[in-house]
């Protein structure tokens, strides 16, 4: 399965590009899906260690607000992406030092608390953040090039796609490195790791900081795409959405988050378009079906199909 993952990724990318070419509005939806996919790789890292974070929307919102605040000053998408990643990484380091002491439900809840603190700050510091009305992000130059709207949207889509590949590749390498394998050790038996001389907290902290950076990058792309940021980005429902996508996509490989994100966004948009009143129910039903009949998520389903064919 690992061998054909790159081919599947290329196939998915080709499908996305085709869809984006045929229907311009899908380009927007798929850019958001890619951004969320990048953020969900972060969730996947923590899932490898058996930890679920219910607060990773914090890093998405941090990345998005970094773009919103700094765009007038350093108005270049490349610079802002770097700043969002580094900023989210630093924030992740500070918060990670606290939360990586805890496991399981405590880990999840502490993350949730942190993201809700950030949400409240965004709402309360009304004069800086404009509260729930949010901040508008104007079209910005990319690597010094001033672009018109359509070209800009294509570029952001391309950047998201490129980053998805690069980051997916790096995380794949990381997961098969000793540091990455140690994450699974945290899930099964942490004390054994310590006996082997591997500091479990350090391993988890490294993964946590990485996941925060991925969240920051995802958030920055979301801000550059939707071009309007609101505190809702860091609300607990957004964190739930990330976990939802992770479950939907499956935690088996780095392609899972992207499968999950694309499926999630498309199901939501088609459900909302066809049944404006009942889209939540449809989304919920999809998740229930996945949990009940495909515990490995879409990735697990794909893996089973491939296996069946190989036999």
């Amino acid at each position: 399965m690992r061998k054909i993952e790159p081919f599947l990724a290329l196939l998915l990318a080709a499908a996305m590009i085709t869809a984006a070419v045929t229907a311009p509005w899908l380009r927007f939806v798929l850019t958001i899906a890619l951004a969320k996919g990048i953020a969900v790789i972060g969730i996947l890292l923590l899932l490898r260690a058996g930890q679920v974070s219910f607060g990773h929307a914090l890093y998405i919102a941090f990345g998005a607000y970094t773009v919103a605040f700094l765009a007038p000053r350093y108005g270049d998408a490349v610079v802002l992406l770097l700043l969002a990643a580094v900023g989210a990484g630093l924030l992740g380091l500070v918060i990670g030092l606290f939360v990586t002491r805890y496991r399981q439900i405590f880990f999840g809840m502490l993350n949730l608390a942190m993201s809700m603190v950030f949400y409240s700050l965004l709402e309360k510091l009304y004069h800086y953040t404009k509260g729930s009305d949010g901040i508008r992000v104007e079209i910005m130059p990319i690597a010094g090039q001033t672009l018109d709207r359509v070209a800009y949207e294509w570029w952001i889509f391309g950047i998201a796609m490129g980053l998805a590949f690069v980051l997916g590749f790096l995380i794949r390498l990381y997961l098969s490195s000793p540091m990455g394998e140690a994450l699974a050790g945290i899930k099964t038996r942490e004390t054994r790791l310590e006996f082997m001389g591997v500091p479990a907290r350090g391993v988890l902290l490294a993964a946590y900081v990485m996941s925060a950076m991925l969240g920051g990058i995802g958030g920055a792309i979301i801000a550059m795409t939707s071009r309007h940021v609101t505190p809702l980005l860091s609300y607990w429902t957004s964190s739930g959405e990330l976990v939802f996508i992770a479950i939907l996509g499956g935690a088996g490989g780095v392609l899972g988050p992207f499968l999950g994100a694309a499926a999630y966004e498309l199901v939501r948009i088609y459900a909302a378009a066809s049944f404006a009143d009942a889209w939540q129910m449809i989304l919920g039903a999809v998740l229930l079906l996945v949990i009940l009949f495909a515990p490995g998520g879409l990735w697990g389903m794909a893996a089973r199909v491939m296996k069946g064919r190989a036999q």
Partner: protein
Amino acid sequence: MTAPFSRRDALAAGFGAVLLPSTLSAQPAQKPAEFKIGVTTFLSGPASVFGVPSRKACEMLVDQINASGGIAGVPIRASFVDEAPGTDHLVGEFRRLVQSEGVHAMFQSISSGSCLACTPLSAELQKLTILWDCGTQRIFEENRWQYAFRTQGYGTPEVLAPLLYLLKHKPDFRTIAVINQDYAWGRDSWELWKTGMDAMKPGVRVVAEMFPRFGSTDFSTEITRLLALRPDVILSTSWGGELVTFIRQAAERRLHERSLMVLPVAEASMPTLGRSMPEGHIIGTRGDHWNNHPSPANPALFNGLVNSYRQRFNEWPIYPVHHMAQAMWALKAGVEKAVAAKGGGWPSDLEMANAFRGLSFPTPTSTITLREDGQGLEDQIVGLSSFNDRFPFAVPKDMIQFPGEQVSAPVGQKSTDWLKTLKPDFIASAGARIG
């Protein structure tokens, strides 16, 4: 920008068997078989108290307009989008409706945040956009929009009119407390009120500024504090279920006997509150469309709207119903004006949008003019809550009507700057008693 693809086609194509050029923008405008509008409104969440009635009203009006020949002979079809999932979803849906469904006009939104996010899209996608309900003053004060128009009043007149009413009704008050929802409208409306109040009646002491969490269900702490502080006036621009809860809990503890309440967005909560709304408090409706309007400009149209809504849905219309109706009538007036200007030919998107600038359209109660910046001038009527035999809920008495132009910030001025220039003698000259 028109995409030749509908949602269903995109699905059928299974992502990619067919490649077609994404823009065919140079097409001459042809008279469409149906006039499609995309409506964004809250269909879930707390603000669905406004969203669901507005959707019902929209469906009813579409049926009525189609039964009488449509807009310029073209029947209308409305599709709805839920605002509740947040900005990135809504912005995506806006694009889908314009680029894939090929709507001819967008109606958006209830939330100010949604409006701020979507109005720039009207310029980017060059599509006529009617802001049918949101109230933020930021839209037209911070930017100019060629394709966006607001067919009702906005935050500034909706706060200033109740303030002027208070200054006329109880000129000697000395202390005030505010209890607003903790989000943009709660903060903005208080800033507008405070600026206006400080200009026209300096020296009022603000004894408490309370912003309970958005979506609160328990106001006992706030009420205890208000009972202890005994402010002369309590302002609350809260709405929906929260306002109902606050008033019920406050009435339990007789808060309304100690302080005069000013509730600029009260009307929509009155049917729910029924007889538990205390009498003699200042209530507003974000406009002039009270169910007991004493002298509507077109009584037949007014009663027609109210009665057909009641008959069809078995409930009284509230202000979002009227705002939706205003948007619909504005659309009809504007599009028909554009068609007439073209001698019966179908106007392009730009020609259609241009027809709305300076457009005056009749509403059942009055006339609304869309200013050159796109902002509509809607009259405001404020009164004191009271009961009569016609309605099972509170309606205003001793009403004062404030002409929209008098209480809106002039074109090109920021609301807070303009409110600072108001003088105490404005109080006596503003508004006129009706009924």
